[in-house]
């Protein structure tokens, strides 16, 4: 059953345009020019209960706006959306008790007090029964390894510790739907991994529905099987994460190990050399030329080992969005 159903959602913003110069500023006092910017255009998707889906896209693609629409912070220009049967922007308490939004900013905790005080307040805000509350606090503080920090004022915690406290605050009322907007932004590798592992474990255990946006492909690869790729407000891919590589990568990587402790010259004619560490070389080759290149290399050089691999997801995504930027700049 679909937990989140989005149909042709659009969201436009009016942006004031200011021309350069003093005279233009003065004119702007009387007559404002504005342009309409579409942050989200005809976005449709459906997410099943218990699914964990990644939203991918460059900055300004419309990911955050979509999450804001689904959390009821923004009203759409047109289109419909239901989450757990509720229309988010009606902001009914019945809906607000069933979801959480976690962003990279400090948001829910009282800065000057220990996190446990904020949690106690959440208990009353979300009307969590006492025994559930105690059990969940125990469970979550253990999983996130923050039990000993519960009595310390939030402002004294490190960014990573604070993020974990924010996660507890967001999960205490056991939401059925969780929106994570860059949950690991600014965290060091250790904290990042801990948050990642926690999210994976928690989602599997509780079968909650999660939408995640992140710039760290590591997060995405570790957590999600399905990805929705958004660019310039429209969905350009919706399907398995692995299919992104198939679909958008025009290249593969050929890894070679030559038998005579060196590398032959002139390998550039096959493609871009990604890495040279004699006698090993990695070359990025266009997909349709792979077999042709392999045949040529094998016929001309003596090779000990050879393999053809996919490019890392991170590179493919980066290329996808940067070529797009380039084409936008050209038009």
């Amino acid at each position, binding site marked *: 059953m679909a937990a989140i159903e989005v149909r042709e959602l659009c969201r436009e*913003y009016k942006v004031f345009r200011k021309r350069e110069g003093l005279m233009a500023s003065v004119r702007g006092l009387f007559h404002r020019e504005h342009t309409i910017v579409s*942050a989200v255009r005809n976005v449709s998707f459906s997410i099943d209960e218990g699914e964990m889906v990644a939203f991918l896209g460059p900055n300004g693609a419309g990911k955050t*706006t979509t999450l*804001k629409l689904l*959390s*009821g*912070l*923004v*009203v759409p220009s047109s289109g419909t959306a239901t989450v757990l049967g509720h229309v988010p*922007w009606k*902001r009914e*308490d*019945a809906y*607000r*008790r*069933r979801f*959480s*939004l976690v962003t990279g900013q400090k*948001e*829910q905790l*009282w800065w*000057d*007090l220990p996190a446990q*005080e*904020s949690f*106690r*307040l959440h208990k*009353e*805000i*979300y*009307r969590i029964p006492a025994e559930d509350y105690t059990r969940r606090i125990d469970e979550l503080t253990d999983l996130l390894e923050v039990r000993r920090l519960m009595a310390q*004022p939030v402002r004294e915690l490190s960014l990573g510790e604070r993020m974990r406290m924010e996660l507890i605050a967001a999960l205490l009322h*056991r939401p*059925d739907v969780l929106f994570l907007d860059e949950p690991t932004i600014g965290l060091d590798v250790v904290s990042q991994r801990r948050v990642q592992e926690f999210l994976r474990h928690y989602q599997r255990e509780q079968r909650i529905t999660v939408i995640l946006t992140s710039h760290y492909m590591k997060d995405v690869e570790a957590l999600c099987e399905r990805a929705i790729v958004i660019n310039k407000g429209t969905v350009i891919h919706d399907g398995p994460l692995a299919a992104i590589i198939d679909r958008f990568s025009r290249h593969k990587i050929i890894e070679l190990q030559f038998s005579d402790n060196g590398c032959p010259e002139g390998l550039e004619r096959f493609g871009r050399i990604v890495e040279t560490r004699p006698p090993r070389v990695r070359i990025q080759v266009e997909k349709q030329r792979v077999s042709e290149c392999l045949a040529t290399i094998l016929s001309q050089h003596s090779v000990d080992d050879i393999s053809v691999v996919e490019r890392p997801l991170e590179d493919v995504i980066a290329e996808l969005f940067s070529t797009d930027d380039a084409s936008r700049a050209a038009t």
Partner: protein
Amino acid sequence: MTVATESFGEELRARLRLKWLILRTAIEERLVYRADFAFSTLVRFLPIVTQIFLWSAIFQNDTARTMKGYNFGQMVSYYLLVMMARAFSSMPGLSTGIASSIADGSVRKYLIQPVDMLDHLFWHRVAHKLVYYVIAAGPFALVFWMCRAHLPGWPAWPVTAAFVASLLMSFAIGFLIEALIGLIAFWFLEVSSLIFIYMMLSYFLSGHMIPLELLSQWIPFVDYLPFRYLAYAPAAIMLGKIPQEQLPMELFVQAVWIVVLFILNRVAFHRGVQRYSSYGG
């Protein structure tokens, strides 16, 4: 997840428990900064001393002289009582706090969670005030004791009761006016100059600077504004400036202002959030 159909009684209990916990948590938060708080409390007593010196110079210790019905002793009493009224009605940082939470987006918390922002801030403010009274009680008592020679005796108990009622309502009016000004940030992101103008105006129009009797010849409508309840009304009641038979009406009008301001706040919040969410959240 089960959403039980809650009875009215349970619903009410849950709401009261939340208000109580907000109050308690906010008190704990206030106590974190107790030293700073105590210091700023003491500093607030300095202006009253200069006011007393100023008026003693104007009256030149002439006890028979009166100004619009105030002799020197009553003038001193007026300032002490106004100081008390302001301890209830002033809301330092409320407007600016609301305005900055709108500007920096932290207001989102109140839209995402099933809480009511104004209710939340109200109990927060009650906590703030309670801590303040505990710290300020000593200095207040000291100032009253030092000025005891000028103070008239206790009025009849209905007057004292009306004074207390007026003080409590002045808290509500102060909260509602400042909250309303903060909510204007939904329309204009920069409201600090507006807040400054409000502070200046309310200093005059509330009777904080001089008794409103001295102002009413220039500003005849001053009695019809809500600002008089921020300082003047409680003090005037206690000093017997308002005849006893008019006290019920005085309190009634004050209560009507609370209702009007409450409705204005609700409308402004509702419209403001609509605007906020149609401008990008």
